[in-house]
């Protein structure tokens, strides 16, 4: 009798970016081909490694490690089986862990990216999951807060406020009910790290929020997820149900008598709800109008109660800090920017993907060593870092190290770590106008500089580009930006001028009227 061969484990990501390029069809094709050939396989829908130019990236478990094939289309599947799974093939990229793009990263938060099945609790536990929470359950709240403070972790959503200080305020605040709110309203273009955690490692976020609850004495948490992320919603809800079923959420976490309840709430397409006070209004069932500060959310947050509100990546960085220790986390980074940042390479970039590196790596390194330049092959003209409110950075500043303070000194911002690459065909005046248009569309309308300034900004840029008294218009535009910067209630109006002014300062030639415009004007 012939021995029955062990099934071959094949991985096809369930990350939405992979699905957007055909991963579901590839998975179906693999299952069908295996059935047709009578080959025993174990098909795992894993998370994405974040090497998006290779998606759909199919991996086959072999003795040498996981061999990757990418990008795979359904029509390639038959030939993969013909070549023999794990053998040479035109799409074979070798052992995935050995790819320099991955090997040279410092993946702390994204340690499991692409490796595990996101909704499998067993997989999570087998790959270091819940070790941080186990430690936290044995610690006093003050000690958990001290560890987070000591690690130097700062808010990864963009504002970079020290997480430990925020937590300490909530711990010290009086209140019968306290809340942990996760800001998963990742509206910034060029960023997708939050999405990858929600879809690809939801237990990590659940663990981070549970630790935050233990640290400050909050028994209830909400994940405010943008409705543009339906795949993330499904993964989170599945993981939350599984965490409840196995005692990692609920009234008695792992027999500790500690309680933490968690639910996902969906946003409704308003960018402004990524601003923390607007998000809290929205969670309360209201229009997402920005609140005045003070009072800080840490004192009077959700439903008037003390609230920790942190971004996904901030909360997802907590388990590793509690697992490996604050010292270990702090060891990464430079200056006051400690730990790692999951950088997201986006836009016109050849090798777009997630690069988690310790702070201090230069933009040039990220753009060329990792990104490989533009997708189009034309030179990089500008990169926008930190989302739609981040400045456009020219080549002359590419040696800037990734560091909150170094970026801020040049009026740039690290933000959420998204880097959108533009090639030489970009019209920077058009980009500047879009920044104002976006601000006008998404303004909550509470303060005048943002609500009206953004519309006036579009008009002034139109006149400037049309050559209608350009010297006057430029002065007017700068004056308007100054008003918005200084007079807006929150970062939307208060930062929308950054992309506008950076475009104007670094690429003034794009704002000069084109010859045909001048003819029309005369």
């Amino acid at each position, binding site marked *: 009798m012939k021995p029955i061969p062990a099934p071959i484990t094949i991985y096809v990501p369930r990350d*939405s*970016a992979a*699905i*957007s*390029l055909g991963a579901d069809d590839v998975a179906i094709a693999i299952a069908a081909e295996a059935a047709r050939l009578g080959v025993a396989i174990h098909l795992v829908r894993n998370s994405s490694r974040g090497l*998006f*130019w290779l*998606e759909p990236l199919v991996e086959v478990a072999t003795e040498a490690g996981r061999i990757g094939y990418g990008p795979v289309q359904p029509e390639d599947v038959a030939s993969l089986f013909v070549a023999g799974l794990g053998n040479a093939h035109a799409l074979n990229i070798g052992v995935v862990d050995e790819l320099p793009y991955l090997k040279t990263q410092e993946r702390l938060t994204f340690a499991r990216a692409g490796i595990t099945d996101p909704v499998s609790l067993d997989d999570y536990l087998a790959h270091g999951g819940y070790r941080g929470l186990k430690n936290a359950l044995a610690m006093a709240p003050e000690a958990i807060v001290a560890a987070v403070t000591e690690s130097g972790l700062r808010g990864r959503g963009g504002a970079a406020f020290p997480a430990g200080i925020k937590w300490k305020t909530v711990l010290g605040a009086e209140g019968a009910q306290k809340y942990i709110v996760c800001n998963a309203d*990742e*509206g*910034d*273009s*060029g*960023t*997708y790290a*939050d*999405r990858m955690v929600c879809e690809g490692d939801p237990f990590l976020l659940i663990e981070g929020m549970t630790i935050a609850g233990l640290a400050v004495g909050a028994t209830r948490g909400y994940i405010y997820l943008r*409705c*543009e*992320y*339906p*795949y993330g919603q499904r993964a989170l809800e599945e993981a939350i149900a599984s965490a409840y079923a196995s005692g990692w959420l609920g009234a008695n976490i792992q027999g500790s008598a500690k309680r933490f309840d968690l639910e996902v*709430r*969906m*946003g*409704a*397409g*308003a*960018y402004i709800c990524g601003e923390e006070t607007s998000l809290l209004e*929205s*969670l*309360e*069932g*209201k*229009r*997402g109008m920005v609140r005045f500060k003070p009072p800080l959310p840490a004192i009077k947050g959700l*439903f008037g109660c003390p609230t920790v509100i942190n971004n996904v990546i901030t909360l997802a960085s907590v388990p590793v800090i509690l697992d490996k220790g604050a010292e270990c986390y702090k060891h990464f980074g430079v200056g006051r920017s400690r730990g790692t940042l999951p950088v*997201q*390479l*986006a*836009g*016109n970039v050849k090798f*777009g*993907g997630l690069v988690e590196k310790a702070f201090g790596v230069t933009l040039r390194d990220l753009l060329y060593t990792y990104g490989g330049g533009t*997708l*189009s092959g034309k030179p990089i003209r500008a990169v*926008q870092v930190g989302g*739609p409110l981040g400045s456009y950075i020219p080549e002359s500043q590419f040696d800037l190290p990734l560091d909150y303070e170094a970026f801020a000194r040049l009026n740039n911002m690290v933000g959420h770590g*998204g880097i*959108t*690459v*533009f*090639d030489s065909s*970009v019209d920077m005046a058009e*980009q500047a106008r*879009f920044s104002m248009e*976006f601000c006008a*569309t*998404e303004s*909550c309308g509470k303060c005048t500089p943002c609500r009206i300034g953004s519309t006036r900004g579009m008009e002034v840029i139109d006149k400037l580009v049309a050559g209608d008294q350009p010297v006057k218009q430029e002065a007017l535009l700068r004056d308007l930006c100054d008003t918005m910067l200084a007079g807006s209630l929150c970062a939307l109006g208060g930062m929308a001028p950054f992309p506008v002014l950076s475009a104007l300062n670094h690429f003034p030639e794009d704002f000069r009227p084109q010859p045909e415009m001048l003819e029309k004007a005369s």
Partner: protein
Amino acid sequence: MSTSTFERKPPIKLAELSSLSPAELAAVNGVLAKLKDAPGALLPVLHGIQDALGFVPKDAVPIVAKAMNLSRAEVHGVISFYHWYRTEKPGEHVIHLCRAEACQAVGGRALEQHVKTTLGIDFHETTADGRYTLEPAYCLGNCAVGPSLLIDMELKGRVTPARFDRLTGVVA
């Protein structure tokens, strides 16, 4: 006219005034019964209605308001604040096309023009045959492989004009 000035009009029954079909009314009431008592429940309630019906009918507003002890203005205010909610019945398929920077960097603007021209509609509009509704989105989190769109909540990346035509079958 013998009606006394003191005679009170009978209370308005919302269901009688409503243009909602019995099925729509049942859907709205079903969502309310399930969700209305959660803290800050208005957004989940509106999502529930839109998920069930494809939109939030104007006549659902007074029903939601009454059930949740809110004013109609408050409910209307929330519906109109958030881009996601729509008060008109959408087409058979809803397309959310990303307009944000990362997609712009890889041809998003040209795709936007192509989509509008091909479908013959602008954003927030539905084609005359009722097949497609086009909505703008500001980022779908697919920024490394744009331009991107959601079609009936399924994400598609690297959408060239040709791929758009294949996805929709608008152009044979």
